[in-house]
C-alpha cells in the first residue's frame, strides 16, 4: 500500500518537508504528487540524498514521484 503525499500547489519547502515526514514514517513506497518542475527536482534531490530510488512520471501538468527503498 503506497503512502500518498499530495504536495500540489504548495510552495517550497513544503513538498520536501511533507516528503521527509513520510520518509520518517517508514511506509514504502511513497507516492509524492507535485505540480512544478522546481518541486519535482527538490523532492527528487531530497529522496536521493536519503538513499532512496526515485521514479518520476509526468501526469498531465503534474508529476508523480515514486520513492522506494
Amino acid at each position, binding site marked *: 500500500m503506497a503512502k500518498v503525499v499530495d504536495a*500540489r*500547489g*504548495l*510552495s*517550497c*519547502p*513544503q513538498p*520536501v*518537508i511533507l516528503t*521527509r515526514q513520510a520518509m520518517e514514517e517508514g511506509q514504502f513506497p511513497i507516492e509524492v504528487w507535485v*505540480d*512544478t*518542475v*522546481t518541486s519535482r*527536482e*527538490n523532492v527528487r*534531490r*531530497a529522496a536521493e*540524498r536519503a538513499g532512496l530510488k526515485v521514479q518520476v512520471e509526468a501526469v498531465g*501538468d503534474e508529476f508523480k514521484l515514486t520513492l522506494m527503498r
Partner: protein
Amino acid sequence: MSERLTRFFASRWGILLAGAVIGLLAPLLQRAGNPTNMGICVACFERDIAGALGLHRVATVQYIRPEIIAFVLGSLIAALLFREFKPRAGSAPIVRFLLGMFAMTGALVFLGCPWRALLRLAGGDLNGLVGTAGLVAGIALGVFFLKRGYSLGRSRPAPAPVGWIMPAIMLGLLLLLIFRPQFTKDGPIFFSTEGPGSKHAPILISLAVGLVIGFLAQRTRFCTMGAWRDVILMGDTHLFTGVGALFVVALITNLALGQFKLGFAAQPVAHSNHIWNFLGMALAGLAFLLAGGCPGRQLFLSGEGDGDAALFVLGMIFGAGFAHNWALTGVPDKLAEGVLTVGGPGPYGQAAVIIGLVFCIVLGFTMREKK
C-alpha cells in the same frame, strides 16, 4: 538538448555558475555606475522604483531600476523557453502582500536585502556580517514554524492574466523609464539627480545584466534565503552553493577592482547600528521565509507566472513607499570632521520592526493549510 540543459541547471554546478555570474556582474555594475557598496540590492532597487513612481518623495532615492525589470523578464524568457511558465495564485494573497511590506521594512532598516548583505560583506563592509547573522536568526525562527506545520496553503492554476500581469507591469515600467513622462507639474516620474538614486549604470547594461541573472536564477532556483533555510532545516547545501559562489566571486572581483574597504563605520549607504542591523534583517529573513523566497526569488517566481509572488513584490514596493513616508528606514552613518555619528532607524522604524516581528510570529503560529 533541453533535457541536458535542465539537468545541468538543476545540478550543483548549475547553481554555482549562477552564483558566480551574479558575484561577477554585481560589482561590475557598481563599476559601471550603480551605487557604491551595493551593486545590486533588490530591496533598495524596489524602493527606488517606489520613489520614481511617487510612492515616496525622498529625492535621493528615485529611479526606475532596470535590473528589477530585467530580473522578471529574464525569468519569463527562461520559463517560456523551458515550458515552466504556469499562471498560478491563491495562496493567502493578503498575507503575502503584508509579508512583502514587512520584509521591505526590515530590509530598509538594515539598508539592504540578503543579496546586498552578501555583496556588502564581499566589499569589506563588516555590517554585512551582522546583517547576515540577523537574517539567519530570522530564518532559524521561521524553520521552527515550518517544522510545526506552518503553511500559507495551496495555490491553484489560474487563467493567463494572473501570470502575465507582472511581466506587463515591468514592461510598463520600462516604458516609463525610457520615455520619462511627467504626469503633473513637479510630479512623477522622478529621476534622482543626487544621492544613490542618481547612481546607475547605463540602462542597456543594467537590462542586459538583469536578463542574464533573471534567466540563470530562474533555471537554477537561486534563492539567498532558501540557501540558509535548507542548511538549517535539513543540512542540504545545494542552494548554499550558489550563495557561497556569489560571495567568493564578488570578493575577488571587488579586490581586483579596488572596491574593497574593510570596516564597520561610515560605509557608503550603510550604518553600523549593530542591534538594528541584526533585528531589521531578522524581520526580513523571517518574512522571506514565511513567504517562501528571498526578494530576488519572488521576482523570478513572478516572471514564471506566480501571482502570489507578484503580490509579495508589489507589497515590497508599496511598503517601501510607507517606509520612507513614515520615517521607518535606517539612516546611514555620518562621518564629519573625524566625528562618527552612528546611524540606524529612528523610533518609528524601531517600532515597525517590533510590530513586524510580532505579525510574523503570529502568522508562524496560526497559518496552517486549511484541509
